[in-house]
C-alpha cells in the first residue's frame, strides 16, 4: 500500500493545489513533498525488513489483461527516494520566490512527481507507458509557461522528440504483449518471453530509442541543452536530476531483462555512441560561457558514462550505475540550486560577467566548491564511488573503451574548475559586488545536499546494499 500512497500523495495534492490561492500552493507543496519523503523512508525500512511486501496489483483493463501493478525493488526505492528528496529540495529553494500563477506552477510540479514515481514503480508495461507520458505533459507546460525567451519552440522540440520516441516504445510494448502466452503486460510475463534473437535485435531499437532520447545519449541529445537553458531552473532541476534517470531506469528495468540477447548484440554500438557522447559533450562544455549550458553538457557527459556502464553488463558496473543515478541526481540538483541563487540575484547566466563571488558570498562559494568536486568524482565525495565502480566494470568489458571514456574525467575537471574560477574567484566587478550571501532556506537546501555528498562518499555501503538485489536480478537474466 505504501507504494500506492507514494503515487497518490503528489497526485491528490497536485490536483488540490490548482484550487488554492496566495501562499497556499507553496505550503501544500512543501507538506506534500515532506509526506512523500516520509512515506519513502517508511518504504525503505519495510523493504529492508521484507522486500516482497511492497507490491500491489488490481485489475485495470481486464479486456487487455492489463493490471494496475506497482511495486518497489531496491532500485525503485532508491529512485523514489531521489525523487522525494529532489522535490523537497526544489520546494525549499524556491520557497521565497513568487511565480506568476503560483497555483498552476506547484500543481504541475506535483503532477510530474506523481508521473515520475509511477514510472519507477510500475510493474505493468502499459501502466509504465502511461506514467512515462504523464510525467512529460506537466513538464511541457511548466517549461513553456515559465521558461526563458525562446521557451515555446524549444520545449516543443523537446516534447515532439520524446513523444515520437515513446510511441515507438509503445509499438514495441504491443509487439511484446502479443507474443506473451497469457496476454498480459506484467513484468514477470515480459521477462520470461525468451524471444528469438532476430526479433530481439529489432525490438531492441524500438524500445531503446525512447530511452536514449530521454537520457539523452549522443546523437539523440540535441533537445537537451536548449531545454535546460530555457526552462525555469526548478524545472531544470527535476529534468536533469530525476527525469533523465527515467531513461536509464527504463533500460535496466525493461530492456535488459526483457531483451537480453538484443541488448548483447547491440551493446558495442550503444557503448561507442555513449563514449562519443562523453568526449563530445565534455569538449563543448569546456568552451561554454553560459552557466546553464555548461551544466547541461556536463550532464550529457555523465549520462553517457552511465549508459556505457549499463551495457558493460557486469556486476560492478551495474552497481556503479545505480549508485551513480542517485548521486548524479543529488549533485546536479546542487549545481542548479547554486545557478538559481546566482541568477535570481544578478540575473546573468554568462560566466564571463561573473567573478569574485567568494569575497562577497563565502558560504555560497564553499557549497559550490564541494558540489563541483563531487561532480568531478573526487574521492570521499559520493561521485567517486559510482564512477569508480563504473570504470572498473567498463575496464572488464573493454580496456580501450574505458581508456577513452576515462578522458571524460580529465575533461570534467577542466570545465568544472574553469567554471569555479570564472564564477567565484578572481576580482569582483560592479555587478557581483552586490551579491548577498545565502538566506536560511537556501542554506538548508544546500547543506542537505552536502551532507548526502559527504555521507555517501565516506560510507556508501547502505546505498550499495539497497540496489544489490536489482543488480543480482538483472545479472541473472542477462
Amino acid at each position, binding site marked *: 500500500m505504501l507504494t500506492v500512497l507514494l503515487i497518490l500523495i503528489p497526485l491528490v495534492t497536485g490536483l488540490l493545489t490548482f484550487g488554492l490561492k496566495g501562499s497556499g500552493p507553496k505550503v501544500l507543496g512543501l507538506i506534500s513533498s515532506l509526506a512523500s519523503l516520509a512515506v519513502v523512508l517508511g518504504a525503505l525500512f519495510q523493504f529492508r525488513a521484507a522486500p516482497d511486501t511492497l507490491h500491489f496489483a488490481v485489475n*485495470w*483493463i*481486464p*479486456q487487455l489483461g492489463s493490471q494496475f501493478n506497482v511495486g518497489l525493488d531496491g532500485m525503485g526505492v532508491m529512485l523514489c527516494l531521489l525523487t522525494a528528496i529532489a522535490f523537497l529540495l526544489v520546494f525549499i529553494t524556491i520557497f521565497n520566490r513568487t511565480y506568476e500563477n503560483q497555483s498552476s506552477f506547484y500543481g504541475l510540479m506535483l503532477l510530474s512527481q506523481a508521473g515520475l514515481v509511477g514510472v519507477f514503480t510500475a510493474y505493468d508495461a502499459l501502466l509504465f*507507458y*502511461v506514467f512515462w*507520458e*504523464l510525467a512529460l*505533459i506537466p513538464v511541457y*507546460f511548466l517549461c*513553456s*509557461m515559465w521558461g526563458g525567451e525562446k*521557451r*515555446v519552440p524549444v520545449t*516543443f522540440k523537446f*516534447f*515532439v522528440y520524446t*513523444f*515520437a520516441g515513446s*510511441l*515507438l516504445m*509503445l*509499438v514495441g510494448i*504491443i*509487439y511484446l*504483449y*502479443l507474443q506473451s502466452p497469457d496476454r498480459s503486460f506484467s513484468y514477470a510475463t515480459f521477462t520470461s518471453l525468451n524471444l528469438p534473437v532476430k526479433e530481439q535485435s529489432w525490438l531492441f531499437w524500438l524500445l531503446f530509442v525512447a530511452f536514449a532520447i530521454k537520457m539523452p545519449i549522443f546523437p539523440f541529445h540535441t533537445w537537451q541543452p536548449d531545454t535546460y537553458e530555457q526552462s525555469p531552473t526548478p524545472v531544470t532541476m527535476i529534468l536533469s536530476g530525476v527525469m533523465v534517470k527515467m531513461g536509464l531506469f527504463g533500460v535496466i528495468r525493461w530492456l535488459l531483462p526483457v531483451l537480453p540477447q538484443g541488448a548483447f548484440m547491440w551493446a558495442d554500438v550503444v557503448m561507442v555512441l555513449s563514449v562519443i557522447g562523453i568526449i563530445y559533450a565534455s569538449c563543448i562544455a569546456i568552451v561554454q560561457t553560459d552557466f546553464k549550458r555548461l551544466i547541461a553538457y556536463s550532464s550529457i557527459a555523465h549520462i553517457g558514462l552511465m549508459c556505457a556502464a549499463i551495457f558493460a553488463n557486469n556486476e560492478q558496473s551495474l552497481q556503479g550505475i545505480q549508485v551513480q543515478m542517485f548521486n548524479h541526481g543529488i549533485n546536479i540538483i546542487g549545481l542548479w540550486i547554486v545557478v538559481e541563487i546566482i541568477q535570481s540575484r544578478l540575473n546573468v547566466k554568462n560566466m564571463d560577467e561573473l567573478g569574485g563571488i567568494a569575497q562577497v558570498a563565502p558560504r555560497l562559494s564553499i557549497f559550490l566548491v564541494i558540489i563541483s568536486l563531487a561532480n568531478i568524482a573526487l574521492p570521499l565525495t559520493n561521485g567517486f564511488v559510482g564512477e569508480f565502480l563504473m570504470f572498473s566494470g567498463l575496464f572488464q568489458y573493454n580496456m580501450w573503451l574505458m581508456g577513452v571514456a576515462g578522458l571524460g574525467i580529465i575533461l570534467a575537471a577542466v570545465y568544472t574548475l574553469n567554471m569555479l574560477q570564472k564564477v567565484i574567484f578572481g576580482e569582483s566587478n560592479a555587478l557581483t559586488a552586490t551579491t548577498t550571501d545565502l538566506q536560511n532556506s537556501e542554506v538548508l537546501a544546500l547543506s542537505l545536499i552536502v551532507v548526502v555528498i559527504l555521507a555517501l562518499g565516506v560510507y556508501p555501503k547502505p546505498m550499495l546494499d539497497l540496489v544489490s538485489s536489482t543488480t543480482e536480478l538483472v545479472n541473472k537474466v542477462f
Partner: protein
Amino acid sequence: MNSLISTALSGVVLMFVGLFVSNRQRIKYFAIALVLVAFVANLLELSTLQGGSQTLFGMLEVSKFGLLFNAVMLGATLLYFLLCGSEFEKVGEHVADYFALIFFILSGIMLASGFSSLLMLFLAIEIISIPQYILAGADKKNLKSNEASLKYFLMGSFSTGILLMGIALIYGASGTFNINELALGTGELHPLTIGGIMLLIFALAFKVSAVPFHFWTPDVYDGSPTVFTAFMATVVKAGGFIAFLRLFHVSFTGGAISQHWLLVLAIIAAATLVLGNLTAVFQQSVKRMLAYSSIAQAGFMLLAVIALNETATQGIILYAAAYSVATIGMFGVLMKVKDYTFEGFNGLARKQPLLALAATIFLFSLAGIPLTAGFFAKYFVLSAVVQQGNLLWLVILAVICAAISVYYYFRVIMAMYFKAGEPEVGVITPAFRTVLIIAIIIVIVLGVYPGVLLQWA
C-alpha cells in the same frame, strides 16, 4: 431496431413540427428529447438482447456490437445537440428541417451498423449521404456553402454509382445479396468478384474521405456551415467506417480472399495517414486543420478495417467514441471563437480558462496522449494491426504520423496558453459550461478506464 424506428420517426415528426412551432429554442429542446429517447430505447434493447444476434427478414441483423455502436453514435449526437444546438438557428430559418435531416442521417447510420444485405448497405449509404448534401448547402446565401453542396453532390453521386456497380458485380459473381452467404473465399475466385471488391473499396473510401478519394473533404468541410461540419466530420464519418468494417469483416474474409484487397487497403491507409497529417501541418485556419485532421484520423480507423480481428472491432467502437467526442467538443469551442485562424486562439487561456482547458484535453485526446480516450483508441487499432502480423511497416508509419499530428494539435495549445492576445469570444452560458465539463469527464473516464465501454462489446 428500436433506434432505427425512433430516429426515422423523429425525422418525420420534426419536419411537421417546423410548420407549427416557430420558437426555435423549443424545437431544439424537442430534438434533444427525441435523440434522448432513441438513446434510451437503444440501451434498453442492448441490455435485453437475447443471444448473440437476431436477423430480420434476411435484411438487417441486430447484434450486440451494432447496438453498442449505435449507442455511441446516439450519445455523440446528444452531446453534439447540447453543445452546438444553439448554433443551428444562426445558419438559416429552417431549424426544424436541419434537425430532421440529422435524424435521417442517424437512421442511415443505424442501418449501416446492422445491414446484412448489400441492398441495405446501398440504402444506408444513400440515406447518410443525401441529407448531407442539403446540410452542406444550408447557408443558402453563402457562395462557399453552395459550392460545397454542389461539389459534394456531384462527387458523392459518382461514388454512389461506383458503389452500385460494385454491388452488381458481386451479385453477378455470387448470386446473392446476403453478406453472410456470399462465401467468396471458399471456391475459385471469379474475376468479377475482385472487380466488385475494388469498386466497393473505392466507393467506401470516398465516403470516409480516404486518400486519394479525399479531395472533396477540405472544401466541403470548410464551405459548409461550421456546425454541420462538426457533425459530418464525426458521427457521419464513423458511420461510414462501420459500414466499411462490417462489409469487409463479414463478407470478404476467410480463405484466400483477403489477400486480394488487403494490400490495396493498406496502401490507401498509409497514403491517408501521410497526406492527411502532412497537409494538416500547413493549415492556417483551425477549421481547415480539423478537416485535414479528420482525414488523418480516418487513416487510423482504416487500420481497424485492415486488421480483421476482435481487437479491431473493439478498437473501432472506442475510436468512434473518442474521436467523435473530442472533435465535437473541439468544434464546440471553435464556434465560440470568432476568428478561426490559429492567431484567433492567442491568449484564450487567460480570457476563458475553461474553454482553453477543454480544448486542450480534446486535442490531447486527438493526439493520443495517455489518460485521454484517444490513447486507448489508438492503442487498440495499432495493437490490432500488430496482431495481424504482416503489416508492421504500416504500424511504424502510423506511429510516426501520430508524432507529426502533435505538431498541429499543439499549435492550438501553444496559441491558447503561451501567446498573448485578445480573442473575441461569444457568450458562454452556464449550460454550455456544464456540457463542456461533461465532455471532458467522458474523455478522461474513457482514457483511465476504457472498460466502461468495452464491457458491453
